[in-house]
């Protein structure tokens, strides 16, 4: 093959000298900006940036309109490192939740947030993944074993427990905070 690389290196040397020392938009910022550009969020999901100038940290609010968690309001903190997209974003759930794949500390078990992360994946993929966890919790790959066993044993009972946790009740000795969206005229 043609040896073009040595010429490329020569060229690069001369260009670096022409560079400037002004602050440059970092590659993580560029990539997140691009991902935000391409985000297509359904009505049930919104974002909030506590500091709008810092796009590497934001809060995602999910209000499922179907499934076990219908009517609940859940927020997730997204913390993106400067190594993004080499490293996945760090995502935690802020509410105490009765969910097979989210532990009581808010850690989220989603393959693409850990072992299956790839730089070609984007924020949209992560958000879709989280959304999917709320539509179809995965009892086979659990982080909260009690919830997983509950779901495997009897989906009806699991459903009732999810509802009572969301309403601020106590399930299996754990007391939860009320996370139901207040809608006038709707049964909690």
């Amino acid at each position, binding site marked *: 093959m043609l040896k073009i690389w040595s010429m490329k290196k020569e060229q690069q040397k001369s260009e670096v000298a022409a560079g400037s020392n002004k602050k*440059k938009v970092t590659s993580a910022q560029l990539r997140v900006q691009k991902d*935000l550009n391409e985000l297509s969020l359904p009505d049930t999901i919104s974002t909030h940036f506590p500091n709008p100038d810092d796009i590497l940290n934001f809060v995602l609010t999910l209000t499922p309109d179907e499934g076990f968690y219908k009517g609940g309001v859940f927020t997730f903190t997204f913390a993106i490192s400067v190594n993004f997209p080499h490293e996945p974003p760090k995502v935690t759930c802020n509410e105490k939740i009765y969910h097979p794949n989210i532990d009581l500390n808010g850690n989220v078990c989603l393959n693409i947030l850990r072992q299956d992360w790839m730089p070609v994946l984007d924020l949209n993929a992560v958000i879709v993944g989280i959304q999917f966890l709320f539509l179809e919790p995965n009892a086979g790959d659990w982080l909260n074993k009690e919830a997983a066993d509950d779901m495997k044993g009897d989906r009806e009972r699991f459903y009732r427990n999810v509802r009572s946790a969301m309403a601020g009740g106590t399930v299996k000795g754990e007391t939860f905070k009320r996370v139901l969206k207040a809608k006038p005229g709707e049964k909690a």
Partner: protein
Amino acid sequence: MAAAAVPTTNGSATRRARWTYSDRILSRPGAYVDEEDGFVPGEAPITSVENARILVIGAGGLGCEILKNLALSGFKKIDVIDMDTIDVSNLNRQFLFREKDVGQPKATVAANFVMKRVPGCTITPYVGKIQDKDQDYYLQFNIVVCGLDSIEARRWINATLVDLVDMENPDSLKPLIDGGTEGFKGQSRVIFPTMTSCIECQLDMHAPRAAVPLCTLASIPRQPQHCIEWAHIIKWEEERKDVTLDTDDPEHITWLYKKALARAQEYNISGVTYSMTQGVVKNIIPAIASTNAIIAASCCNEAYKIATTCAPCIGMPGQNNYMLYTGDTSVYTYTFEHQKKDDCPVCGNLPKDLVVNPTSTLGDLVESFAERPESQLKKPNLRSEGKSLYYSSPASLMAQTKGNLVKPLNELLSDGEEIAVTDPAFSTVFKYRVHFS
């Protein structure tokens, strides 16, 4: 003249019987290259051709020629991408397809045909869009050859290959060979992404598609084509909004033809025919088989030279990189160096300088991006290192940043600061260094 003097390299005589003659080129010193250029006649260049992984984008008029030429030149590991299926009107020049193949995907049929004719060559087809594939996919290849009819696809692959270049990885630099034809005219060019003038730098070499102003179509048609465009753009939207126009559906074309014909009669314009309707709506440019053959041959020769270094290729920095061919006024070819644009939005390494009035607003700036011919941004996101200037997506950031639109630039930026602009329509980031006037 006699075949007696054919030098055979060890052990390859029978294995490469089919390439006995082309191997002579690779096993003898070249007239225009020597070892300093990296050309060592013998096994090395032969192995290079056999091992090179080459990606062909497009399996249409040019693509059929390119696949055939590459396989017959001895390339053995070829991939081909095309999203189209075979139409009966392709058969006159897309010679890898037969009548029985109509409706089948071009990439698959072309790959199978060539593999059957050239044993030992593996062609892997992918039926779909180039945009389906990520950087890791494109990183596998040594050379990319394009035989496309769309500028959009060219710009996408160009931006992708420019982005791929990583100073830590010598294999990330993929030579891009681009062929294109239109009637009797064509071009072939070689691009070393980030090193030499790229497709974005050369965007002005593509003649823009002649578009008639909408008001002409709506109010005063003068040509049969105006009536067809009117039926296509205005009437369809009015009467069949719920139906997505399928330009391959004869019922849809007939409908447009009848509407266009009625309008033409109303304005005393003659010449609207069914085939003209089809041509205008599908933007058909007559394709000439031999122009495709000429351009594809040139592209494949460049690929062969890049893979083997047996002769100088075009496209080296500071040298000719663009061959244009014109066959409609006798025969004319001209090869020249298209200069790299330092401010190319795709391959310009340094941010482009942008002089702004410090008291004009961010809104004015955003609007000017929408108008700049090289960007034409529809849904831009803008930031500096420290500040989210304006984000059109997601909704919450738009709400938080739209207030900046009315602020003067000197309140948001300092003189000389870099801003980055992205848009869903472009895979590349546009960078500007803002200077106050």
